[in-house]
């Protein structure tokens, strides 16, 4: 039992001593998760909106494919992206394997279906008559999307929170694509795996605590934005 309490004590010491290794890991983690969430949101929300309001053939099949994508196993994505990014693979010329760029790519692919899927659902929750009314008043597609977005911003923010959650907690794909290289591609989750294997529980607990706190702060900020604008 002692090693648990000792671990927590040493973990807190490590955090407050601003250990260089921990700071490196935190820096890479923030870079990867925030960039990936941002890219996934910029692509996912507009495409979700268009899929939801436009009529086109095979729409139901596309939506079921996206919903299936929400449950894609990250390690499979990691494997496929590694194969594509290998030097002698089709996208080897990018030299993205074992880099932050490759990791962001993997994370975007993991988060996109979640953000698109939840955005589609949010748009479809709006009364159809409202959309027709907006169109009748002369709005074009992008104008009507913006008006509708204002109506459903709470649900869209929930989609963003879910996307961020899947990114920050992911370990398999970033391990494969990033290679868990110290100071370069080692993130909070992969560092926890490595340090637990090595039996450095204090270090692992310290990183685990940081991961929880970081996740909480980001979600708190997003939730705050979400709730502040709620009409009570």
């Amino acid at each position, binding site marked *: 039992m002692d*090693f648990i309490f000792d671990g927590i004590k040493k973990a807190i010491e490590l955090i407050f001593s601003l250990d260089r290794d921990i700071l490196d890991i935190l820096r890479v983690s923030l*870079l990867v998760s*925030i*960039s990936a*969430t*941002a*890219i996934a*949101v*910029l692509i996912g929300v507009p495409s979700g909106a268009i899929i939801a309001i436009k009529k086109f053939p095979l729409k139901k099949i596309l939506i079921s494919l996206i919903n299936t994508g929400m449950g894609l196993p990250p390690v499979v994505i990691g494997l496929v992206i590694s194969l594509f990014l*290998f*030097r*002698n693979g089709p996208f*080897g010329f990018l*030299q993205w*394997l*074992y*880099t*932050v*760029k490759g990791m*962001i790519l993997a994370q975007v692919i993991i988060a996109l279906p979640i953000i698109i899927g939840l955005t589609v659902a949010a748009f479809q929750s709006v009364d159809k008559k409202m959309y027709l009314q907006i169109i009748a008043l002369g709005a074009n597609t992008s104008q009507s999307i*913006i008006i509708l*977005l*204002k109506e459903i*911003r709470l649900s*869209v*923010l929930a989609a*963003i929170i879910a996307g961020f959650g899947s990114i920050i907690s992911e370990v398999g794909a970033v391990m494969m694509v990033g*290679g*868990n*290289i*110290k100071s*370069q591609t080692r993130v909070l989750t992969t560092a926890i795996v490595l340090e637990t*294997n*090595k*039996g450095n*529980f204090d270090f692992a607990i310290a990183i685990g605590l940081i991961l929880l706190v970081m996740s909480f702060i980001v979600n708190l900020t997003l939730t705050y*934005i979400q709730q502040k*604008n709620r009409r009570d």
Partner: protein
Amino acid sequence: MLKKIMLFFLGLMLIAIPLIAQENKIIILATTTSVQDTGLLDVLLEKFTTETGYTVKPIAVGTGQAIKLGMNGEADILWVHSPDDEKKFVEEGYGISRTTFMHNDFVLLGPANDPAGVKTAKSITNAFKIISEKAVLFVSRGDQSGTHKKELKIWKIAERTPNKEKYVEVGQGMAATVRIADEKQAYCLADRSSYLSLKKNLSLTILFENDKNLLNLYSLIPVNTQKFSKVNEKGAKILLDFLLSAKTKEIVENFGREKYGQQLFFYDYEVKK
């Protein structure tokens, strides 16, 4: 409101882009978990990067996988420890040369009370025979790594096959494997440096050591650029020269004395003065 959020994320991206640019002068080093887990690699690479400006991407996997990466031209240089596979790799033209430059040794770990009684074994092959006969739990890397290959070779020399029901193949790195063996109170083969770096959290002890079949040789193999045009030949050569220099020799020979109270790796290459 949403515009603000979008702008916020867009701003973050703009900040992030310069941070992720700049990726030249990169060497991919496929290596083994034991070199990384002990911390030796970090020390050496930090010095190498400050001296040469090259960034090394060490991919710490089992030797089997490291050799596979080399065979596909996905690594520039290998730092591995499975002599038979290495020779084959060079003979088949995947590697330019093979330089055995340092060693340490393997040890047989097991529960302190030694239920099988291997402490008094005459040799490591004898110890493996006893493990097989007494049907005690044995944890194997099971990942085609250098340590796994060594273990399989000892079973072969001992002319025994492990007891199927008591043989656990975990398919993980050295540190993870030793930890699993520790939890299960099983026997397992590990390199001495990994054992020493994990020792503080282990109840397993060394039950058998010092045998000619337990020698662990580490070699460096630059990957052949004639087979793979994308291999960073120049970078691999610079890293090779650095690892075969007096500076590296000094670092390797002093590594671990302070932290583990003894030398972990023994440098064998004769450095040109």
